[in-house]
């Protein structure tokens, strides 16, 4: 469903991703682990088109999308949520979801009708609000909801474009342990045919949700395999304990 081949990206002398190759099957849930500065977010930015790789290719559903701009990739089914909330603060939860659903249904550029009034948009809004537990907050403004609920909305907005592949950059970033547990359930309850690629520091969530785990260090894939193998990996422990240089 999503494949990268030898993605390379440098900023000046700093090599941020090195020959990163990944292959995600339809419905696969993969978690990317790695310490700060490992190149995880830079990899995401290349996948969605916010950054152009120096070399390498990105394929989505069998099609080479490397040259496509961000919006076109999104319309082909590649959606993302951000590490920092990127919501529409002055709008309600319903309007936030509605903006995304309107784009998916082709109602975002209509002049004579309100996109939120369209049955297909309302249906997606309700569906997604149920999926990410936002029904009680539907009419609240973003500024009126808690940080944890905003994180749910961050994922919800990405889901409202009905993606084939959803990239999530640290969905539980900044939330407490209890809310993080709620996120595990939320992610586990997403449709099984949705392909997920998640950057996460929370090991519990990673092992709970992931079908496969990829570990990045200094921009390089150093581990790619099943959660059980990752759990027992000395390399992974060393990376997280900060002794990579000695490995």
């Amino acid at each position: 469903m999503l494949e990268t081949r030898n993605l390379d990206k440098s900023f000046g002398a700093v090599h941020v991703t090195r020959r990163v190759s990944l292959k995600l099957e339809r419905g696969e849930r993969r978690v990317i682990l790695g310490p700060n500065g490992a190149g995880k977010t830079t990899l995401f930015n290349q996948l969605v088109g916010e950054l152009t790789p120096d070399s390498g290719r990105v394929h989505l559903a069998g099609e080479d999308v490397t040259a496509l701009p961000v919006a076109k990739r999104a319309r082909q089914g590649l959606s993302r949520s951000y590490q920092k909330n990127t919501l529409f603060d002055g709008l309600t939860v319903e309007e936030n979801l509605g903006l995304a659903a309107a784009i998916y249904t082709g109602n975002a550029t209509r002049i004579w009708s309100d996109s939120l009034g369209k049955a297909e948009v309302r249906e997606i809004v309700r569906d997604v609000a149920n999926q990410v537990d936002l029904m009680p907050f539907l009419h609240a403004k973003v500024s009126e909801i808690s940080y944890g609920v905003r994180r749910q909305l961050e994922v919800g907005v990405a889901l409202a474009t009905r993606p084939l592949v959803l990239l999530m950059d640290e969905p539980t970033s900044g939330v407490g342990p209890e809310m993080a547990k709620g996120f595990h359930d939320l992610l586990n309850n997403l449709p099984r045919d949705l392909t997920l690629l998640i950057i996460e520091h929370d090991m519990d969530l990673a092992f709970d949700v992931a079908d496969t785990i990829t570990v990045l260090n200094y921009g390089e894939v150093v581990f790619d395999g099943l959660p059980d193998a990752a759990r027992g990996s000395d390399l992974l422990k060393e990376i997280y304990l900060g002794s990579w240089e000695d490995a």
Partner: protein
Amino acid sequence: MFRHTPLRYAALVLLASAALFQAFTAQYFGLEILTEILILAMLVLALDMVAGFGGMVSLCHGALMGVGAYGYAVLSTTAGLTPPVAMGAAVAITAGLSWIIGAICSRSHGIYFIMATLAFGQMAYSYVFEAPIFGGDDGLGGIERLDLSVVGIDLNDTRTFALFCLVALAAMYGLAVVILRSGLGRSFSGVMHNEQRMRALGLTVWRVKADVFGLSGMIAGVAGVLAAQHIMYISPGLMAWTVSGEALVVVILGGLGTLVGPLVGAAVFVVLKHELSSLTTHWHLIVGVILIGVVMSRANGIFGFIEDFVAARSKSANTNPKAREGTKDA
């Protein structure tokens, strides 16, 4: 996202009533001032659509109004088209040109967007100033008003023309509301809130900006056609960047992003201009001081100040139980 509140409805009713009262009771000079207000209100309505709801602070809207005015003048006089056809064509040309400017400038932001639109405005001004077909710096005269005599309306009558401008402004206001509350308007507002996210969701951002800028230019074009018919003479001064600057001042004075505020701003600005200019030639200084006062007060213009005041009063009434009891007792 634009929302009508009870206060905004009340302000609209008040403004419309005042305009109607003036239209039916004023003499020639008062009617001329009313028409000037209505045309300026239409221009600032167009500017508020893009600046207040999309963050596209344009310094070419004066020039766009000029394109509408010159388009109508040339098409109805030199090209010999009938006024209705010339009006439609002039508005369509302005909308098309505006769409192109919006499409080109949509990739820039902030000060760069302002400068890019200023450059387009100045290009139009310079071209008209030098081109013989547009009368150069002498301008163009002999412009006719729309002939509605078949339905018994004489637009050459000052009072009737003022009422015609009022109806046109009401129609353009309605159009602006429909656009801003449509899917396109919601997306436009979303782009202002978070352009990166809208793009990541699959929206072709430049196209949305260009579409709304084109529609806003269309409204500015209608204002231009009415301006040409009002004075029956136009000169390049109509396209000078100061006209765009003045329109921006009016939007800020009235209340950016409220649609109603700029209408209030237009009325206050034109009345102030006429009252103060009869007292001193330095009336701009006084308007400048007022504008600085409005900006420094951190309120969103005159109408924004009223909205904040009413909201604060209503909040205080709702949170003060004694006040509520007092109201019950009374």
